[in-house]
């Protein structure tokens, strides 16, 4: 370990960050691949089908087969597309989903290292800033395709994403008011322990007050809209737009749009876990305190991943529970229900905090 101790603090930081980035990236890509498999198997079960089960036991090699297939398919580019944007769009969809997880505390600590890539004090603002960039990918894809239906699809989904961005931003504010912090690590720390001595509920944000519970519901609905999942998956309107923004894409570029969607789903789930469900903490056995040993640190990461997985199943399950919203219903719900509700929620939270401070 001599070589390591000889490094300067800055070099050590860079090294640890690189390791964390690689680790998080690997886990995230693995999850993207296997969430696809999970989705296919779960959907199949709900629809009385069997789902992919040929590649390996229970189809566990299916994601690999899918990836190989996507790369080997013909990468067809129509002559009429705007080339530069056409190439950029899939990446522009993929990148925000990957970058969002940088501020998520996915575990307590291993050794002296905090299990978060960038422990920003403005973590949540960073997230919202990045998440809203995801819309560029879709708009670019629609624009680059240089034909009617993809363009309409791109415009439409950008309108949807921008609308729900606002509802999402407003919904989180009560949580931030209650915690008094924007740093996600400290937000997690504010959710440790039990709710009350007489109430067997963990001290997670959803349970802390009716306002935060409502905030969670709005955030959840907005997350569905942001990640283009049913019942708000209007960008993929096959019936109306022959597929929407991704009509002109094929092979791995087409796959990237969906990998981006899944990465966004994972990022949104991670956000919900961090903001409302106590992050890597569990109230039992002192699991809500920063880990002292490596084993505990890994256990915390696993707890976090398990919570994210629960949300992923929920995301997939809801897909078959509700029919797709009509476009005007979607906008109506976003602007005329969630935005006023979010504002009222902030007001209620403010009044309650004011009353509590005075009492």
């Amino acid at each position, binding site marked *: 370990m001599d070589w390591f101790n000889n490094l300067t603090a800055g070099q050590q930081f860079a090294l640890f960050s690189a390791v964390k980035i690689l680790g998080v990236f690997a886990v995230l890509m693995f999850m993207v691949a296997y969430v696809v498999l999970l989705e296919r198997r779960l959907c*199949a079960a*709900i629809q*009385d089908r*069997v789902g992919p089960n040929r590649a390996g036991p229970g189809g566990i090699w299916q994601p690999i087969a899918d990836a190989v297939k996507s790369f080997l398919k013909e990468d067809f580019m129509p002559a009429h597309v705007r080339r530069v944007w056409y190439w950029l769009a899939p990446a522009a969809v993929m990148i925000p989903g990957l970058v969002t997880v940088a501020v998520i505390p996915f575990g307590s600590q291993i050794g002296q290292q905090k299990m978060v890539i960038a422990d920003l004090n403005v973590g949540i603002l960073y997230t919202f800033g990045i998440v809203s960039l995801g819309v560029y990918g879709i708009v670019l894809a629609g624009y680059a395709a240089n034909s009617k239906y993809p363009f309409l699809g791109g415009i439409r989904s950008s309108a949807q994403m921008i609308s729900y961005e606002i509802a999402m931003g407003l919904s989180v504010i009560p949580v931030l008011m209650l915690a008094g912090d924007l740093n996600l690590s400290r937000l997690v720390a504010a959710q440790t322990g039990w709710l009350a001595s007489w109430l067997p509920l963990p001290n997670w944000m959803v349970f802390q007050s009716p306002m935060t519970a409502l905030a969670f519901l709005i955030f959840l609905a907005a997350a569905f809209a942001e990640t283009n999942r049913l019942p708000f998956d209007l960008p993929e309107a096959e019936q109306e737009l022959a597929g929407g923004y991704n009509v002109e894409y094929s092979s791995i570029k087409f796959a990237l749009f969906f990998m981006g969607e899944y990465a966004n789903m994972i990022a949104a789930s991670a956000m919900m876990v961090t903001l409302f469900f106590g992050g890597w903490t569990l109230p039992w056995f002192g699991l809500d305190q920063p880990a002292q040993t490596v084993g505990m640190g890994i256990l915390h990461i696993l707890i976090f991943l398990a919570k994210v997985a629960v949300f992923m199943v929920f995301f997939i*399950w809801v897909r*078959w*529970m*509700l029919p797709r919203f009509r476009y005007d219903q979607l906008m109506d719900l976003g602007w005329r229900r969630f935005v006023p509700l979010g504002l009222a929620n902030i007001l209620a939270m403010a009044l309650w905090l004011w009353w509590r401070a005075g009492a």
Partner: protein
Amino acid sequence: MIVPRKKLTFWERLFLPAFWAGFKVTWRHFVNTLFRRRNAAVVTAGGYYPEVPWTVKEGYRGAPYLVKDQEGRTKCVSCQLCEFVCPPKAIKITPPGPEVDPTTGNVEKRPKEFEINMLRCIFCGFCQEVCPEEAIFLMKDYSLNGQSREEMIYNMEKLLALGGVHQDPIMKWKKKALEAQKQEVFNPERKE
């Protein structure tokens, strides 16, 4: 036509009842499929190849195979009617020469070779209809596959093995044999 758009009640606009109803439906199907193995392929016997084979219905026209009679003889007499009637010309029969195969008993013209090109066969069933000897039948076999085109040309040996014995009540050759025996006993042509 004017479709009346009913105003949703407050309760309905919360989407919670819809949520609950949707969950009930999806949960039922999920449990049935995952834990009770009651997926559509099994329930409708529509098949889930190859674990749950498709239940072939009565009267299905699958691959045409040759059958033997109860005594293990080829029923085909190489009359070549099926070869003639076959629309895609999938059947090729090589009739025997003048020499008689002693192992086939009194059966007149056992084919030397009988080939069906399963790549050409359209499973129309004309061969079965036209056959005067009831020697060829469209069976229930719907899964025909091979590694090469040559492998898909089924020869007589293969067709007979796949066809098996046909338990028909007519037993034409047995009766012919009895008739022949009778003629041995009582022959009006024979001058004593």
